[in-house]
């Protein structure tokens, strides 16, 4: 089933890859190429891919996306989050665009640049971290990304440095031909006591079939605070496989906010290693599906040491014949006493043909822990709908209002108000043909 992807792998030789000829970089590539050949693409026989069949992806002959075209001012405006002030880094079809990005000059030793540039110019900053969390690829897609090790963003925040303005990393799908693949590779190192907000977006300017296969490695060092947003807004025909691999040191706090809105088939892995006492991670997310979309969210939190905590809350809204998978794993390692792990997943089905598989999985190898989890699937409350309608609210608006109310307690946790409004708007305009919900709320 993976033959076409083996052909894709062979195309590496034709590409101008970052750090070509640099030993440690080539070692990562070659090791992962070998791993890809062993692993192949995941199949439904793999427990972690049981409900997500990637055969439609495997059947296509994807070719690496070329260095993309540039974007016009109009393109940029079309994808901007209204009113949100950001430092912007832009990747077009997986290639960093220095001319459109304006995140370069932050001073104080902060580095925000392309990964390729960082490998060339400051390998001492990159080498200790790059690939550390992806060394043992869980599945073929990750091995494939590392076998190419293409461009992406590199963010280095020195110890004690606070970056107050969010950094928006926009991965834009723009290229002309059908069936291209881009494999962004990002690396974020937040120094001790530093502060960073990163908004990672995947957007498309067309509705062609393509594949994004991304990896983001994040290191939150002692007492760092990282707010990491992901907006997955791929085209309705796009495929998205993305991994967030996060390592947290003592006292660090990472908030992940994940909104999955687009894609024909999309899978997001979030892996968090809580590796120092009092490290805390929040995992919030919402997935909003219609048509025949398939969105899989697969999270795993490792409580590796004592006194760590995690709080996960995901909500899903599904319409039409869409299907969602939520798999939340929490592993409490033998020495991780006093771990505190919470997990909740709630789903709202707006159509009888929509389907969700929600699978919480706790593996607890320590005895003094507090772990809770809960999952639910429900429909809109008919009594609440009737109540709203007796107040004059038409059916579509009433459904929109109740759906919005359902999703809102997760979206409310998004700390940037402009971003929150944007996601609220994307949700309601995607699911309902109502224009004046914003008037109301």
């Amino acid at each position, binding site marked *: 089933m993976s033959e076409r992807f083996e052909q894709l792998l062979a195309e590496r030789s034709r590409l101008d890859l970052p750090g070509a000829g640099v030993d440690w970089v080539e070692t990562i590539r070659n090791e992962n190429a070998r791993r890809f050949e062993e692993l192949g693409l995941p199949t439904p026989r793999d427990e972690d891919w049981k409900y997500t069949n990637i055969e439609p992806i495997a059947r296509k002959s994807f070719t690496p996306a070329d260095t993309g075209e540039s974007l016009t001012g109009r393109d940029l405006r079309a994808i901007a989050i209204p009113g949100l002030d950001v430092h912007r880094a832009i990747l077009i079809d997986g290639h960093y665009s220095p001319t459109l990005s304006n995140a370069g000059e932050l001073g104080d030793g902060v580095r925000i640049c392309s990964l390729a540039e960082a490998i060339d110019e400051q390998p001492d900053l990159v080498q200790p971290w790059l690939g550390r969390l992806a060394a043992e690829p869980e599945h073929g897609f990750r091995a494939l990304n590392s076998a190419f090790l293409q461009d992406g963003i590199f963010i280095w925040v020195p110890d004690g440095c606070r970056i107050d303005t969010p950094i928006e990393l926009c991965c834009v799908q723009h290229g002309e031909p059908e069936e291209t693949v881009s494999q962004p590779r990002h690396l974020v190192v937040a120094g001790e006591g530093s502060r960073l907000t990163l908004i990672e977006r995947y957007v498309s300017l067309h509705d062609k079939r393509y594949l994004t296969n991304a990896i983001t490695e994040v290191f939150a060092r002692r007492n760092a605070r990282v707010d990491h947003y992901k907006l997955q807004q791929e085209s309705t025909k796009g495929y998205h496989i993305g991994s967030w691999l996060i390592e947290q040191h003592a006292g660090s706090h990472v908030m992940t906010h994940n909104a999955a809105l687009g894609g024909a088939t999309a899978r997001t892995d979030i892996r968090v290693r809580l590796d120092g006492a009092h490290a805390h991670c929040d995992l919030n997310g919402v997935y909003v599906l219609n048509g025949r979309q398939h969105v899989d969210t697969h999270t795993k939190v490792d409580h590796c040491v004592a006194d760590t905590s995690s709080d996960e809350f995901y909500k899903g809204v599904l319409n039409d014949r869409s299907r969602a998978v939520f798999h939340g794993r929490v592993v409490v390692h033998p020495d991780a006493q006093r771990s505190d792990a919470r997990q909740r997943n709630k789903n709202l089905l707006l159509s009888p043909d929509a389907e969700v598989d929600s699978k919480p999985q706790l593996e607890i190898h320590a005895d003094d822990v507090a772990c809770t989890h809960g999952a639910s699937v429900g429909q809109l*409350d008919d*009594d*609440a709908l*009737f*109540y*709203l*309608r*007796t*107040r*004059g*609210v*038409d*059916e579509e*608006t*009433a459904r929109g*209002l*109740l759906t*919005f*109310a*359902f999703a*809102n*307690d997760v979206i409310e946790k998004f700390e940037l108000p402009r971003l929150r409004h944007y996601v609220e708007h994307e949700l309601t305009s995607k699911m309902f043909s109502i224009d*004046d919900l914003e*008037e*109301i*709320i």
Partner: protein
Amino acid sequence: MLSIDNLHVRIDGKAILKGIDLDVGSGEVHAIMGPNGSGKSTLANVLAGRENFDVTQGEVKYLGEDLLALPSDERACKGVFLAFQYPVEIPGVSNVYLLKAAVNARRKYHGEKAIAAGEFLKLVKEKVKMVDMKEEFLQRAVNEGFSGGEKKRNEIFQMAVLEPTLAILDETDSGLDIDAMKIVADGVNALRREDRSMIVVTHYQRLLDYIVPDRVHVLADGRIVKFGDKNLALELEKEGYGWIRDRLEREPGAATR
């Protein structure tokens, strides 16, 4: 205003209303009394447009129009209001959101533009005082965690904001202590007008000491078995509903009108 003619309603195949006739003139207040399970809430809900209730016979005219042909939101926009016996909790939707949506839905329906924020705020603040509730209450999710009495007052508050033409109050008095009931009754009386009619469903006579009805109807087993003026309520208070049951058992189906 409202004219119900030989209304038959089934729920899940079971006959619940078995031929209701009722005429409510403009500005009138009609009380509907009767034992539990007699069909009072069913009647109220059918008038408001509950969908899974089957009207198998009869018709309802409201301001000369076929009320049953309209979806519930259109009925509301035309001035029908139901104060629920069991108001629904709607987590995540605040009282103000709901009211603003309701006010603007009406305006849109009548081709008017949305209400200005300031005007709306003034309106709700004025009305919330009327039911003796704090302003914080506006920001709370609709009925969520409200006490029984707060839920009932919230219904009256909504009615006051929406100013319906036909208000149906389904046991708004039950579960209220005497002070809360007076607040509700004062709210209702303040809204009495020549061009506004009300149907007050109640299980007890008590409320009718405060809201004096023009007509009283007794509903039993899906039929109106007796009607009269306000004195009928007093009579019922004295005699209870036992006589109705006796009579229905003696001559099933032969209720007097």
